[in-house]
C-alpha cells in the first residue's frame, strides 16, 4: 500500500509515508505534522539538559537542601499516583497519558522545587480529563486527591513535634487553588493543549504488521512505560509506537506481569536482542532471525522511519528498566513531602 523508496535517498516521499502512519483510518485530533506538539514541544536532549541545568544554577541551595530522586524514579512515582487517582474515578488511559505529558511540559518551564507537585498532578489530571472529553467535576477531583494525598502522615513521620500544631495538607479544600493552577498550566503551555499519543499509531499499524493481540497488549504497556522517561518530549509518537512494537515482537516477555515486577532481566535481554535486530537491519543477506522478526525488519528497512531514533528510544527504555530497580515509593514520597514542607509549597 505504501510507495516504497530507498530509505537513504527518499526525502521526497517521506511525508507521504508519514501521513500514512499518523493519519491512518481512525481519527487523530488534528494532524501531527502541523501540530503545536511538533512545532513547539519537541526538544533536543541537549536543550532539555540545558533547561534543567539552568534550574540547578538558579537555586543551588534548594537543590542541595532538597534532593529528589532521579527524574525517572520521580516520574514512576507521579505515574503511580496518577493511576491511583484515575482508578478512583475510572478515567480513560489516554487522559492519564495526556496528564503526564502536561506535567513534563510544565516542568520544562518551572523548577519542581518551586511547585507543589501534588497540586500540579491534580490539576494536570483535571485539565487532561477535560481535554480528552472525559471531564470530571472539580469538586470530585479535589475530594479524591485530598483523600489520596492527605499530607499529614509524612509530617508526623519526619517531624513529630511540628505535626501537632501545623495542620498541613498537600491539596487544599478550596477548589479555586485548582482553578488558579489550571490557569498557570494553560499559560505555561501557551494554550497548546492537544497531545498526540503513540497509541493511535499502534492501532493503525496493527493490521499492516499483522500483530497478535498479545503483541499489541505488550506494545501498549511499553507505550505506557515511555511516559516515565523524557521520550514524549523528544520523539514523535509514531517513532515511539514503532519502538514499542519492536520491543513487543522481538522480546516477547512471557507475561506482562513479569514484565513489570522485574524489569531488569528484560533490560538485559533487550540490550542484547536490540543489538541483534539492528545489526540485522544492516545485513539482510545473512541467515537472519526467525521469519516473524525478519518480516518486521524488512518492513522497517523499507519504511521511512528514522531507525536511529527508534534505537535511541529503545535504549532509553532499557535504561528506564534498569533504573526502575532502585525505585522506592516510600523514598520518593518522603523526599517530596520534605521538600513541600521545607519550602512551604503547600501554602
Amino acid at each position, binding site marked *: 500500500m505504501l510507495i516504497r523508496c530507498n530509505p537513504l535517498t527518499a526525502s521526497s516521499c517521506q511525508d507521504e509515508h508519514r501521513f500514512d502512519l499518523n493519519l491512518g483510518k481512525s481519527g487523530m485530533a488534528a494532524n501531527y505534522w502541523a501540530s503545536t506538539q*511538533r512545532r513547539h514541544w*519537541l526538544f*533536543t536532549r541537549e536543550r532539555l539538559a540545558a533547561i534543567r541545568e539552568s534550574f540547578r544554577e538558579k537555586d543551588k541551595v534548594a537543590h542541595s537542601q532538597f534532593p529528589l530522586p532521579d527524574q525517572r524514579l520521580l516520574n514512576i512515582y507521579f505515574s503511580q499516583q496518577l493511576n491511583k487517582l484515575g482508578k478512583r474515578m*475510572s478515567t480513560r488511559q489516554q487522559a492519564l497519558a495526556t496528564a503526564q505529558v502536561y506535567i513534563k511540559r510544565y516542568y520544562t*518551564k518551572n523548577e519542581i522545587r518551586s511547585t507543589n507537585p501534588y497540586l500540579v498532578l491534580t490539576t494536570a489530571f483535571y485539565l487532561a480529563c477535560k*481535554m480528552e472529553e472525559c471531564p470530571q467535576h472539580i469538586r470530585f477531583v479535589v475530594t479524591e486527591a485530598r483523600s489520596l494525598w492527605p499530607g499529614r502522615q509524612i509530617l508526623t513521620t519526619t517531624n513529630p513535634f511540628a505535626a501537632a500544631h501545623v495542620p498541613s495538607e498537600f491539596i487544599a479544600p478550596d477548589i479555586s487553588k485548582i482553578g488558579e493552577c489550571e*490557569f498557570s498550566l494553560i499559560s505555561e503551555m501557551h494554550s497548546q493543549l492537544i497531545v498526540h499519543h503513540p497509541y493511535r499509531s499502534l492501532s493503525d499499524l496493527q493490521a499492516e504488521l499483522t500483530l497478535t493481540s498479545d503483541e499489541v497488549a505488550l506494545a501498549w504497556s511499553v507505550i505506557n512505560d515511555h511516559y516515565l522517561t523524557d521520550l514524549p518530549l523528544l520523539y514523535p509518537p509514531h517513532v515511539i509506537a514503532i519502538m514499542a512494537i519492536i520491543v513487543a515482537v522481538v522480546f516477547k516477555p512471557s507475561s506482562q506481569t513479569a514484565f513489570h515486577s522485574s524489569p531488569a532481566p528484560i533490560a538485559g535481554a533487550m540490550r542484547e536482542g536490540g543489538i541483534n535486530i539492528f545489526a540485522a537491519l544492516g545485513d539482510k543477506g545473512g541467515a537472519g532471525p526467525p521469519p516473524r522478526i525478519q518480516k518486521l525488519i524488512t518492513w522497517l528497512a523499507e519504511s521511512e522511519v528514522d531507525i536511529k*531514533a527508534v534505537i535511541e528510544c529503545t535504549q532509553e527504555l532499557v535504561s528506564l528498566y534498569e533504573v526502575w530497580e532502585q525505585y522506592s515509593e516510600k523514598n520518593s514520597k518522603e523526599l517530596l513531602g520534605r521538600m513541600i514542607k521545607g519550602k512551604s509549597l503547600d501554602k
Partner: protein
Amino acid sequence: MTVSPLVPPSPSAVAHRKSAGSETARTTQGNESPLQQVQPVADREITEQLNDEVRHKYIKAKKLGEGTYAVVYLGHLRTDPSSFVAIKKIKVNTEYKDGLSMDAIREVKYLQELRHPNIIALHDVFSSKDQNLNLVLEYLPRGDLEMLIKDSNVHYGVADVKAWMAMLARGVWFCHENFVLHRDIKPNNLLIASDGEVKLADFGLARSFADPYLNMTHQVITRWYRPPELLYGARQYSGAVDIWSVGMVFAELLLRVPFVAGNSDLDQITKICEAFGTPTEENWPSVSKLPNYIPTDGNHLVPLQGRDFFLRHFPTAGPVGADLLMSMCALDPRKRSTAYQALQHSWWSTEPRPTNKEDLPRKSGGTKKMGDDLTRRGGELDDQFKNAARQLDFAAMKG
C-alpha cells in the same frame, strides 16, 4: 479560478503561526530529528515576559459585545493601528468554581491546531493579570450569514449562495480531514471577512472524532440544524452530523428562512419527518434501535422524499443544486454525503459560477454582529432558548 472548491491548505497557513516575538523564529524542519527549539530560557519570569510581549503587541480599543461567557473587544496591533483583531476575553472568574469551561478549552484546543482560510484564525493567546484568558482572533468585520439571510434589503442570487456554500464546505472538510467535529454549524457561526471570505467560528462544542464504540453526547448542535440521529439520541456519530447542518444552512440560504424550525426537540423531529419523510427500518436500517427513537403510527408515515421534492422546494438551486442538497439531507447518516463528496459534486462547476468573494453582497453593521457572535455560547438560538447542551454531561462522557 479553480472549479472545485477543494483547495488544499496553503503551506504557510499550516506550518506557521502568526505569533509573537521569539515564537516567530521557530520553524518546522527535519522531521525525524527532534526540533532545534528556540524555547525561552526555562524560567518563570521569562515565561511571564513572553506573555507580556504578546499582550503588549495588541491594543484593546472598544468593546464589541459582552455575553455571560466572554467579552469581545476590537483591538489592533500596537505597531500598526490599521491591522485589526478581535480579542475575546474569556471570563475565567465567573467560571472559576469549575475551572475553565469546556467551551473555552475546546475553542483554544482546536483553533490552536486548525489553520485554514475558511476557519477563523487564532493569532495569539495571552493571559491578563486578572487571570483571564484572551484569544486574539482574526477580525471579521462583515458580520455573518444570518445577518445577510435576514435582511430583506440584501439581494443575493444562486451564484452568491454557491460561493458561500463552497467556502463553508471547504471549512467543514478541513475540520473533518483533521478528525474534528464542529457540532454547531449554523448561519450565525459563519462569519465574513473584509474580503468576503466565509469563516467557520465558535469551536466551543467541537471535539475530536471519538474512538470507535466510545460514546459522545447527543446534546449538541443548535436545534434547527440538528440531524435526526442526534434528535433520536445517537451516542456514536460521525462528520455526517455537521453535513446535515451544512444542508440546513444551504436550504436556509435559498429560502431565507430556516427550513425546519421546531420549537422543541420533539417538534423538530416531527417537522423533519414531515419534510423529508419518516425514518423507517427500510430507509434507515436500525434507526429503531436509537435510544430516543419514536415510532410513527402507520397512518402518519410520510414517504421518503425524492429529487422532485427538492426541486419543487428549492427551484433556485436548479436540478444539480437540488441534488447536492438532497445528498446532504439523507435521513440515514450513512447515506449522507461526506464533506469530501460534497466538494466533488458537479454543482460547483455548473453555471452560474460562484461569485468572486470580493463581489459578494455585503451589509454594514458587521462589527457589532461579530461581537455578538463571539460572545454567544454555542448551541444557542439567539434569545430564543437556553440550550442545555453546554452543561457537561458527566455521566455520558465517561467511557
